[in-house]
């Protein structure tokens, strides 16, 4: 029995995942345009908030620049979930199951599409930040760290999307979960620093919400420079969520790809 090596399998599935993602402008373009549009509107609309005592910067654009990175990741979740659901609904997953495919290769291959989109988003947002803002305080190295963190965040949410798709087998379920992701973004330190959130319950929710730390890590690199604690918390939350989501998606794939 002939069987491709794991590396070859990962390679071809990764290529497929990247190609099919990039061939769907209806998925790629909104994930870039929508966050940038909101950034532009909010940076101008909420700039007066920088006059609040204790606001960390005098440019709301610099403060809000972290948001598109997380918003983009939410679109990645939708894209990954929709692609996986489409494979299940069309029977393509069964086709793959009939080949000597290793489950690990399928998982890693799917992730490649998520990471490709995440990379395009991250680089775009960094360049916009540099072009229209006051640059990245942590410099070029900081920009690279932002891209890396952004990829980890994309991975986390992408795996959540894939998990939902694998469990439900349905694109509609993925769409149904999408608003919950936005809730997670809204109920964070997205719009104001946590210490300036006046409403107690909101501040508590934002403090427990891992998305707050992801935003704050990116924000620290943009506004302040190198803040070890913020970076550690951001990477820990993103990385932890990514690990849990990958394990969950992997378990769901084991159930979905039931072969003897």
């Amino acid at each position, binding site marked *: 029995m002939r069987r491709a090596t794991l590396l070859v399998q990962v390679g071809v599935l990764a290529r497929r995942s990247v190609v099919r993602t990039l061939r769907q402008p209806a998925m790629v373009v909104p994930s870039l345009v929508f966050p940038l549009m909101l950034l532009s509107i909010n940076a101008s609309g909420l700039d007066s*908030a920088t*006059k609040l005592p204790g606001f960390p910067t005098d440019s709301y654009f610099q403060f809000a620049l972290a948001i598109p990175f997380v918003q983009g990741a939410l679109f990645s979740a939708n894209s990954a979930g929709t692609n996986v659901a489409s494979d299940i609904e069309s029977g393509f997953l069964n086709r793959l199951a009939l080949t000597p495919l290793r489950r690990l290769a399928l998982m890693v291959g799917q992730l490649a599409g998520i990471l490709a989109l995440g990379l395009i988003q991250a680089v775009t947002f960094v360049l916009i930040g540099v072009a229209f803002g006051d640059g990245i305080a942590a410099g070029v190295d900081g920009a690279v760290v932002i891209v890396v963190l952004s990829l980890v965040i994309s991975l986390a949410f992408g795996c959540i999307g894939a998990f939902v798709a694998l469990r439900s087998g349905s694109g509609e379920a993925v769409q149904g979960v999408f608003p919950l992701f936005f809730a997670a973004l809204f109920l964070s330190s*997205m719009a104001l620093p946590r210490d300036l959130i006046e409403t107690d319950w909101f501040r508590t929710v934002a403090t427990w919400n891992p998305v707050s730390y992801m935003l704050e890590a990116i924000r620290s690199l943009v506004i302040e420079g190198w803040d070890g604690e913020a970076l550690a918390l951001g990477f820990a939350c993103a990385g932890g969520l990514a690990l849990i989501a990958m394990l969950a998606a992997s378990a769901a794939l084991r159930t979905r790809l039931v072969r003897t």
Partner: protein
Amino acid sequence: MSGGFWSVARAVAWRNIHSFFTNPAIVVPSLLFPMFFFTAFAGGLSRVDQVPGFDYQSGYTTFVYGFVLLQASTFGGIFTGFSVARDFESGFSRRLLLAARNHGGIVGGYWLAALTRAIFTVSVITTVALIAGLDVNGNAIDLVGLYSLAVVVNAAAMLFGTGIAMRLRTMQAGPLMQVPAFLLLFLAPVWVPFDLLTGWVKGAASFNPITLVLEAGRGFLAGDPTKVLPAFGVALLIAAVTAMWARGGLRSAERAA
């Protein structure tokens, strides 16, 4: 269904309203999104009312509520436009056009449905806002003014969406309905009063008719009516223009049926 305007409108409205209330996939998002906005921004941005120059007396919760009310009214109308598009895509609208003697009643029916959906959504959101500390200083007349303005906005949005749906007759027209509505809503003093806006958004808001509507609405809530006539004037003008737009859409759909 061969009767006049109102009997056709009632029949179309009933079907749409029934479909709305029996389908969680439609009801839930239409409630969730405005509530998210309200909760996130009234809760997360409440300190913004301490920015120097923030002069809205009724507090930030009420300030945000004014926007959320406008948003719910607008998207209540737009989502009815989605229903119209769905009906065309499924072929149901062709049956409507053949069966109904008075085609204007079809649009009238969708308008009644949009209004009913908006009343439901606004009621729920208002209840949540009151629990969250909404401070309404306006009197009964102010409130009549506020919700009348919301009704006009809802009708205008619905007519706009319907005009697009009837011309394109496909669910893929959704973004064409949503994006203009979104831009009109957000290129306005959403988070802070007009005077505290800066940059290009301030320029856009100064030309945006929705700015007048939003400020009038907030004035009603604060018991300090402001720019009432211009706000109603502009809202009614938009409604009249979109009514003609919808009428043109209806003619287009009739030709294609």
